[in-house]
């Protein structure tokens, strides 16, 4: 089933990398992009994505805080926090927010596993 996916990262290159992987994994999905938490929240309210990929380390509100807010707005949305910071505290917080943890650099394999679980 075609889904709507929200990609949030302050780095344009990182968004390009995600979209490249999506082109291989889910070419038919609709993509929405945001470069910060405020843009992301506006898109969550107005465009109702089904799945969201959130970068952790962003200026302003980070991806974990964003995950908590999105959870309140859209309890059923599948969330993943993407981070190069693999410290156990970060992974634990992602899980506590009900989000998948995906390590950066993002691989097609790990993204594919998340997308499979998200669309089960």
């Amino acid at each position, binding site marked *: 089933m075609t889904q709507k996916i929200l990609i949030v990262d302050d780095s344009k290159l990182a*968004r*390009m990398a995600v979209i490249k992987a999506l082109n291989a994994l889910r070419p038919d999905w609709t993509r929405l*992009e945001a470069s910060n938490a*405020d843009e992301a929240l506006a898109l969550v309210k107005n465009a109702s994505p089904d799945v969201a990929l959130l970068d952790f380390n962003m200026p302003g509100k980070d991806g974990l805080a964003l995950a908590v807010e999105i959870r309140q707005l859209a309890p059923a949305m599948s969330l993943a926090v993407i981070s190069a910071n693999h410290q156990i505290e970060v992974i634990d917080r992602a899980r506590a927010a009900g989000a998948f943890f995906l390590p950066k650099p993002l691989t097609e394999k790990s993204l594919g596993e998340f997308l499979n679980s998200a669309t089960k």
Partner: protein
Amino acid sequence: MISEAAVVLTELEMDALTELVNLGVSNAALSLREMVREEVILSVPKVTIMAREEAITSLGEGDGRRLVAVHQHFQGDIEGRALLIFPEAKSMELVRAVVGGDLPLEELMELEQEALAETGNVILNGCLGTIANNLQHSLKISLPEVVYGGGSEFFSLAPPPNVADGVVFIYINFLVRERDIKGYIAMLLDFPSLVTLKGMLGRFIERVGEGGVVTRPHAS
């Protein structure tokens, strides 16, 4: 002031360099976390290309605060120097965090140089290694050295004498929260290395991002 080097990298190349630094420092923080057994908080990296004088000023030269730096020289297709910098007043605290808190002060002081050098080595190697791997170029990294002083000392170390012509100043805070240790990482590259780096970043962008769309993010 905009240095000559500032115009060299495009927005996307700066973006790529920032992402690489983020990857590198995150790896380094993971190693540091193992050493201090506490979470290491990282700021969002800010990469700026500036002239040497600006870099010195941004280190707070003149406010009298003494700093300590662990530095390593790297060589390969690009050549430069990486520094891990923090206030000298925090240096013993970092040593204590790394070697454990039970040692008497005298012994800690004996270990200080060695522990600082080793900590710097782990962080800077983690950072440089990750960046080099992602750019698919290897770097030879010298042994760490500990220096005390300020920006004017740190940014005019030899060799190579001309290394600080154009400075890539990477500012990232790392914070060991329980101990209030803050520090940052700087990288110095000369102008020819910066030009080489630009080429490497271009190829990295092709590998990583090619085929990814370039839409403007929007909040509709």
